[in-house]
């Protein structure tokens, strides 16, 4: 491995350390951040920045989230760690009723400039309360920005932008990918929200994905390319704002769309992508959504399989729209 090969967790920790050196008002609060977080995404930060800026908290999700807001209201920039996305549910009042709305309710007097980080996605054997995908709930909440990167470089770039913006950002991180390694370039620049990554160009079908479904979509796209199907492949990277223009322009050309997401498809973010494209592209030939069924994530591997997105599901959907 080259010296620039880093795990996603290492990239996340180094990026945050960079930003904390730049801005002394950035600090972290959450459970077990002192030991580096459960995905090593805070490793080394406590040693460098101390207990005032890396605050190990009780298991009090409401107050982790609400205290983050209070600290933002007096001028600091908290990074709120939720451990996993499922645990934001005890803090939903603080996030949805308070953080998302303070700027608006108070007529612009206040900003909730903070980042609420929540590793999400299916993880083998984690079952119904540790493996949910609830990203689309937050897209439905005015005031929130929603990030869902799938690669280390995108995570770094979006995290930088989140920490430099005045908006509250709900930052979903692909938890099953934290240990994966990638060859990193020297610079990890900030990446704007609302700008998809265009991963391959093709004229036959547009495939849109994000987060943990993205690597699966890449595998499927490679198989399709081998079969001489021209795939226009996008990683959305952020769900609000999202790159509506790029996707609509692509489908206007290919006239076929497959949206691939982890988590329940009904009212999932894939539905928003499909509906938007359906409204905007008149000469549409076909749309398919690949997503999990509307069941809680089961435990037994044989049952859990029902929730996983596999490349074959994507290639099948592509073949269906190509036949239209």
């Amino acid at each position, binding site marked *: 491995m080259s010296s620039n090969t880093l795990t996603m967790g290492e990239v996340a920790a180094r990026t945050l350390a960079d930003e904390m050196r730049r801005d002394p008002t950035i600090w972290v609060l959450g459970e077990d951040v002192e030991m580096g977080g459960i995905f090593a995404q805070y490793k080394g930060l406590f040693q460098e920045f101390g207990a005032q800026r890396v605050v190990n908290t009780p298991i009090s999700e409401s*107050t982790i989230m609400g205290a983050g807001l209070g600290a*933002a209201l*007096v001028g600091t920039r908290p990074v709120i760690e939720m451990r996993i996305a499922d645990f934001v549910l005890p803090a939903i009042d*603080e996030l949805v*009723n308070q953080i998302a709305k303070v700027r608006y*309710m*108070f*007529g612009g007097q206040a900003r909730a400039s903070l980042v609420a980080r929540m590793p999400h996605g299916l993880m083998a054997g984690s079952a119904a309360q540790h493996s949910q995908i609830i990203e689309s709930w937050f897209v439905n909440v005015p005031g929130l920005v929603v990030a869902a990167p799938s690669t280390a470089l995108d995570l770094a770039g979006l995290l930088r932008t989140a920490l430099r913006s005045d908006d509250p950002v709900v930052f979903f991180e692909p938890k099953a990918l934290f240990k994966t390694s990638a060859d990193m370039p020297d610079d990890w620049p900030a990446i704007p929200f609302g700008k998809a990554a265009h991963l391959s160009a093709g004229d036959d079908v547009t495939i849109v994905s994000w987060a943990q479904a993205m690597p699966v979509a890449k595998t499927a796209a490679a198989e399709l390319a081998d079969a001489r199907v021209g795939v226009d492949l996008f990683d959305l990277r952020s769900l609000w704002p999202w790159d509506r223009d790029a996707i609509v322009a692509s489908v206007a050309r290919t006239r076929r769309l497959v949206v691939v997401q982890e988590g329940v498809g009904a009212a999932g973010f894939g539905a928003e992508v499909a509906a938007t494209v359906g409204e905007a592209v008149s000469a549409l030939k076909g749309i398919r959504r690949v997503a999990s069924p509307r069941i809680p994530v089961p435990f037994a591997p044989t049952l859990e399989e029902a929730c996983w997105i596999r490349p074959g599901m994507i290639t099948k959907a592509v073949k269906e729209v190509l036949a239209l």
Partner: protein
Amino acid sequence: MRHLLHRRWRLHEAFVKINGIKRGLWRAVDHIEHPVCLSLMGARLDVPVASREVTAPPRPSLMQIPSHKTDHCAFLRELYRRMKAIRVFEDTCVAAHKAGEMPGYIHSSAGQEAVPVGVCSALRTDDRITSTHRGHGHGLAKGSDLDGMMAELYGKEAGLCGGKGGSMHVADFSVGMLGANGIVAGGIPIACGAAQGLRLLGSDAIVACFFGDGAVNRGPFLEGMNWAAIYKLPVLFVCEDNTFSAFTHSSTTTAGPGPLARAESCGVSGERVDGNDVLAVHEAALRLSSEARAGGGPRFLWAKTYRFSGHVSVDPAAYRSQADLDAALAHDPLALARAKLAKAGLPEADIAALDSEVQADILRSQARARTLPYPHRAQAFMDVQDMGAPA
């Protein structure tokens, strides 16, 4: 200066001659007439040659408080004046709502005035407070602009929140009032974090956190007590115990010996006071906030009082007996403060004149609010967010 762009502001323009050259001097003021930016324009008036942001000094509180020790009568007069202002404000707003001219609904704090006034008179301007859905009194006691609050309750553009928050979300950051809150106990975690943030920034300001007796049955109450205790945060928790959890007597919903015992179980010490005695509240708040400011950790003030009105303006409070209400009215904090003021030596004629002055001030404010414009419809789409703002 990017962060100023989202604020609503208006421009004042003047011309000045500097070294014989006529230049434009622009002053941007926000919706409550605070200067936010000064720009000296070049000769062509289109490019600023010098600009600076203005950090507006905190506006004076309702009135600077005379010293308790050197002028006891003047001190009591100011406490009474604030309480009277809150009472008249609440009664005026309830009447305006019932008359159909004020939108929404009003959670009146009539009967509870001694708590916010006693506590806020023990705070500094840079101390912060968090409030509740019954928050007008907290804001006024902390020094919020009367006209701005009245206009907000009328939903007018000139309101403290531009008409976007209304009664339940009224906030005034210029005096450290971090917002009323439509969620019971919602302010508790916010107060903890504000104290933590202030400490990180090197400030010795403290946070007073107001909540009601209903809030002690919500999870964030326990979380917040524990949280403030483990980090030894400078928070003064103020349980404004008005006897009712919305439409229900709290004795039927709360187990155990009460809020203070719950705080003490987390190592947060405090006092129980007669929440109708403004002087007792003030003195306790001063003691406890000084301890918290000095690094002693959080403190708890349990102020027992009584809500004269129903839960909201339309609630006749049929669930309580006339005898209970009569007993509470006989212990009216405003009447008690008035009697103390008379005993301290202020002649009845002067107190009556003060009453009239407060009454007139609030009626003038109401008359003004009535004539003000509602926000433009475009405002509905502003101040949502920067990234992904509504199209």
